[in-house]
């Protein structure tokens, strides 16, 4: 408690070496499992620079995939924690609010209706078209949600989720329309987003998302205490001196970047953003300065486990990981609903 009082910007997390070690162990175990089981010898070959089959599989398939799961999971966990804080709502998971659907909608529009225009982009820009569209879609959706939350259902926990439901339906209707209008090839590109998979793993993508996650962690460090103040309400936060408007703008942009980029490369992966912050809060308490980094860690671990399962349960085929996270995450939502009702009481 003393540490918490004396270092208000960033309280220490004494367990972090253990957390890093656990993540490292999980990474090694995940990299070892798959259609071809690998072991110590393959790691030695990789580190020794030998060109064995096992070393190649590790370097070119498993490690990028595993690293991708870690950064995407961290992005989803962090996005979940940020969204709960910004919307002051313990159930405000980005996929429930429709933020990634906004990204999917923007990408669908770009791949179909605007495909002629997108195809006209200089070749060097084309790889960035999808992430930029996704980011923009997520950002617009955040803006709509804020407007709806402020004007229609101020302060209501369930109201925000219902607004999210409506926006979700709207975005998905647009996606459906795009699907209807799409050509066969466009359709193949499109269906990928509705499932959620980490199959597109590659080092450049891992690096870009890694930079985004690092930037988001810096942002959380800057605004962690501000999010704590926001938990007391927007008015109180402003009264104690928090520049609420600027903070909200920065955090919503961060949230849109994380959600949008995760969608751009992996499609819709739900519930990690709900489970990770709740697990983090259970472990380290509600202080946002602790919850944000720990939620990133939980997100990384959870998605790594889920993706490893998705790769291994139906070998040699693989399941879209989004199906797995929904399968296990949805029941947890019921538990959280029950708990939220108990804690919030009549405030629905």
């Amino acid at each position, binding site marked *: *408690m*003393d540490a*918490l*009082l*004396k*270092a*208000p*910007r960033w309280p220490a997390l004494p367990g972090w070496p253990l957390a890093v070690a656990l993540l490292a162990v999980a990474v090694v175990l995940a990299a070892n499992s798959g259609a071809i089981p690998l072991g110590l010898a393959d790691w030695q070959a990789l580190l020794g620079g030998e060109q064995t089959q096992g070393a190649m599989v590790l370097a070119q398939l498993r490690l990028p995939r595993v690293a991708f799961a870690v950064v995407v999971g961290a992005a989803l966990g962090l996005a979940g924690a940020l969204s*709960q804080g910004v919307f*002051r*709502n*313990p159930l405000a998971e980005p996929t429930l609010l429709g933020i990634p659907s906004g990204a999917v909608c923007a990408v669908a529009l770009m791949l179909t209706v605007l495909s002629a225009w997108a195809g006209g982009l200089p070749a060097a820009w084309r790889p960035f078209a999808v992430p930029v569209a996704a980011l923009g879609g997520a950002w617009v959706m955040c803006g709509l949600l804020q407007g709806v939350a402020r004007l229609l259902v101020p*302060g209501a926990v369930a109201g925000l989720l219902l607004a999210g439901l409506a926006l979700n339906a709207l975005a998905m209707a647009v996606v459906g329309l795009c699907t209807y209008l799409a050509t066969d090839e466009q359709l193949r590109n499109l269906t990928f987003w509705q499932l959620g998979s980490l199959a597109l793993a590659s080092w450049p993508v891992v690096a870009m998302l890694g930079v985004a996650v690092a930037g988001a962690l810096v942002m959380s460090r800057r605004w962690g*205490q501000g999010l*704590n*103040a926001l*938990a*007391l*309400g927007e*008015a*109180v936060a*402003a*009264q*104690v*001196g*928090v*520049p*609420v408007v600027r903070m909200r703008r920065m955090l919503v942009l961060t949230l849109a970047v994380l959600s949008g980029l995760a969608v751009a490369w992996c499609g819709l992966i739900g519930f990690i953003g709900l489970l990770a912050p709740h697990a983090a*809060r259970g472990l380290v*308490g*509600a*202080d946002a300065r602790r919850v944000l980094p720990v939620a990133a860690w939980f997100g990384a671990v959870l998605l790594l486990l889920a993706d490893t399962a998705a790769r291994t349960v139906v070998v040699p085929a693989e399941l879209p990981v989004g199906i797995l996270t929904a399968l296990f995450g949805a029941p947890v939502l019921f538990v959280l609903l029950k708990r939220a009702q108990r*804690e919030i009481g009549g*405030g629905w």
Partner: protein
Amino acid sequence: MTHHMLLLEEALLTRHGQRFGGFDLRVDPGERVALLGPSGAGKSTLLKLMSGDIVPTSGRALLDGRPVAAMDPLQRARRRAVLPQSHQVAFGLPVELVVSLGRWAGDDGGRWVRQALSWASAGHLLGRRYDRLSGGEQARVQLARVLAQLADVERGLLLVDEPLASLDPGLQLELLDTLSRFCRERGHALVAVLHDIQQALGGFERLLLVSRGQVQADVPAGTAALPALEALFGLRLQALQVPDGGWALCARRLETAA
């Protein structure tokens, strides 16, 4: 030269077709002012104009000579603190964290947090989760947060919006007493929205009587204010001597007060 801490000049707010003000009033350092009036009269709105939470549609609300709503949030937080009516906190933040948020604009450090908690008789709540506290305990913690914000400031402004309404009478008097002493020691002005006439007469030196979005009267607290209060609430009020030399207020409805 007199130093007006807070000055409203024809501050007018129109909202949802309702009109509040124009308010013309000043509050000097160290003054203790109670805002009284029927529900919906505009007391909270007046308080929000004073705190800078809302910007007047026309006219000015000045704190230390500057428009309060346009001040830098950090500087403003070093000059005035606000204790709101309701205390909803999302997520189960620990008590000391809630109080430490009062130190956002000041230096950090647990010293003021502990000190403020003990002023608010809430030292024993250190380490508890805010959302698991009773209503009275939550009110103490919020009071501590506000005390922490202005603990190392002199001649500041403390705005309080009916924070005591839902508490038991003993706690109400205790917290009001803490607030008054805190403000007296630092020369803070205290402006409080109250419902209890007795509390307003006992603990404050000036009453602003508000109804229908206007300040109807600005009177010194004392038995001389009773006629104005009777008109404000539509009540018969009588001051009764009590054996210890003070007096107590007896309020009756007009019809039955023959």
